[in-house]
């Protein structure tokens, strides 16, 4: 406990508030991207429709389910430690990490296929025709959004690993599990970001 706090509870709630404020910042960060998406989609509706038809809906949908499940497993781990079961928390952490890695692997496969199909904005973009310009802008948005989301996932996996390590050291107990809760907020928020991106990328302009 830092010397500026009066109690552990005081510090815990400050940490939680800090994370929520950080998430508000994240809303604006990804929100700017959604703004760009809306702005450009309005100017190139046909191009965005064309591009959406070439997005990999199958992998995208599986990944959504994977991510939702990972959020579920981590929250289950949080419930476990709040009942004083650190072993269960560690198991939940590894389940979460596993699902996160599956998500990233599938994402990698998707990117690999996209690149193979020539869906890279630039001179060799494979979707030709009148709506090519709009479709390219869509794919810029697609790559920026998915890469940034994947970076958040990688940071999240690191944080969950850290939680598992501290849980093994016996840092958490029924009385005190603030870091688990803070990391849970972050992990679920990354989930929320994906739930916003998923319809925009794969469905909205279908």
């Amino acid at each position, binding site marked *: 406990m*830092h*010397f*500026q*706090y009066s109690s552990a509870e*005081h510090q815990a*709630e*400050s940490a939680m*508030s*800090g994370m929520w*404020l*950080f998430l*508000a*910042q*994240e809303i*604006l*960060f*990804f*929100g*700017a*991207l959604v*703004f*760009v998406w809306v*702005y*450009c989609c309005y*100017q*190139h509706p046909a*191009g965005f429709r064309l591009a959406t038809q070439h997005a990999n809906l199958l992998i995208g949908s599986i990944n959504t389910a994977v991510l939702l499940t990972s959020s579920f497993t981590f929250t289950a781990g949080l419930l476990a430690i709040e009942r004083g079961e650190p072993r269960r928390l560690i198991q939940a952490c590894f389940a979460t990490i596993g699902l996160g890695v599956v998500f990233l692997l599938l994402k990698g496969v998707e990117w690999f296929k996209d690149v193979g199909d020539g869906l890279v*904005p*630039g001179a060799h973009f494979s979707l030709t025709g009148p709506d090519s*310009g*709009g479709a*390219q*802008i869509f794919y*810029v*948005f697609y790559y*920026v959004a998915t890469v*940034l989301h994947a970076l958040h996932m990688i940071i999240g996996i690191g944080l969950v690993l850290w939680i598992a390590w501290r849980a093994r050291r016996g840092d958490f107990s029924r009385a005190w599990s603030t870091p688990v809760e803070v990391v849970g907020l972050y992990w679920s928020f990354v989930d929320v970001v994906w739930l916003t991106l998923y319809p925009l990328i794969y469905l909205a302009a279908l």
Partner: protein
Amino acid sequence: MSVTVDTPRVSYLTEENTIGSWLLTTDHKRIALLYFASITGFFFLGGIAAALMRINLLTPTGAIVSHEMYNRLFTMHGVVMVWFFLVPAIPVTLGNFIVPLMLGARDLAFPKLNLVSWYLFMTGGLFATYSLFAGGLDTGWTFYTPLSTDYTKGHVVAVAIGIFISGFSSIATGVNFIVSIHRLRAPGMGWYRMPLMLWSLYATSVIYVLATPVLAMTLILLGFETVFHVGIFDQRLGGDPLLFQHLFWFYSHPAVYIMILPGFGVMSEVLTTFSQKGIFGYKFIAWSSVAIAVISFFVWGHHMFVAGTSVYSAITFSLLSFMVSVPSAIKVFNWLGTLHKGYIKFDAPMLYALGFLGLFTIGGLTGLFVAALGADVHLTQTYFVVAHFHYIMVGGMVSAFFAGLHYWWPKITGRLYPEMWARAAAFLIFFGFNLTFFPQFILGYLGMPRRYAAYPPEFQVLNVLSSAGSTILAVAYLMPVFYLGYSLRHGARSPSNPWHATGLEWKTQSPPRTENFPIIPIVTEPPYNYPRPEDRTRAA
């Protein structure tokens, strides 16, 4: 009130003095000093660029540098001054030092994050300045596309990365301040018992946290566009150059209020102390800070009145721009009300503060000229705009910074500075500033465009006048370096409350101990609880 000069043997300055103890400190006061050193460096770097520009403009054809060099100079001046001086200046130095002391807390909510934010700032700052020197950049600090993405030879991406990294330091500081103000107030300190400095830093932090991420995303897209030429901002590929301007100004207009809001906070502290009288209209000043933080997000379109946006958008943003100036006007009136029936003393911080009041009022009023659509068409992109925002940012913000620096100097260092030198510098800054920038209003009205390395000869007289003023201003800005430096070793020891001010920071020793308060104070009275004039008369 009796003044005892206690000479504390132990303070945050003396506790441990290894290099490691400074570079790895989590003490907010030491981090503030680290920031002081860096900010000063960036200020003089940006200042040198400005001085060279003013020398160049002595003759119509450009006295010393080529057009290309001139363009690089104003880009460096803009980038360094905006992101590495003005935006962080007051919050990370004075704010970092004073927020926990004012709250009656022992540190900020997240001390390690505070240190990380300094390292992020230095990483970004050094990276950006290195790129500015190594390759040069000639896009102006605004990076307008497609000039920046397709036509310039400079290091756009490198500078953007530098700004991007230091942006996270702003976010970290903002999160730290907001959570600290919510969670670490001393017992008894309700919201309306907080000093107004805290209100304005709170409002600043809101903008830090919610506007900076948009800039971060904008810079990512700008970098993408520059490297891969993907077409978000490129009209030839179906993009829209105005989209960049929308994104850029969504951050950069609120950023203007990041620069001036902390200055408002310093004003409220200094004016009450040197009037020895409570603030006039506490709640109005407090809530006008919050109102500015909110409305400042609604007005960015006024940078684009002649840029090709829709007429409806222009009219909406013009109306909202007028609205944002109302809370600023309320503040000025309330400060005047504070002087009324006070016991005014003219120490150096007060002189800087009165200078601020005058210069900021001029800056604010000329802002109305460019908010009024029909007038903006003529004045925008000219020296009128240059003069307007320098009145706010240099006349206003830098004056407030100096006011705050002198005001809290005894608390920070435990020493008093040479008063006469400080007063002389305050006068010289006011005079030099007006001589530099007032002619630019006229130049702007006459139509001289900004960012011109050379100009038609009829503008020369006013330009020479402005350059002459800038030499005075340069000397005036150097003076504090010497006399404040002198006071560090030779200044008289300061008592804990040299100005007879209220506020928790004056209740602890000067300089404070690492833990600020041996016992956490309990607040039992409103801020600025100076004796009322009628009570003084009765007592006398």
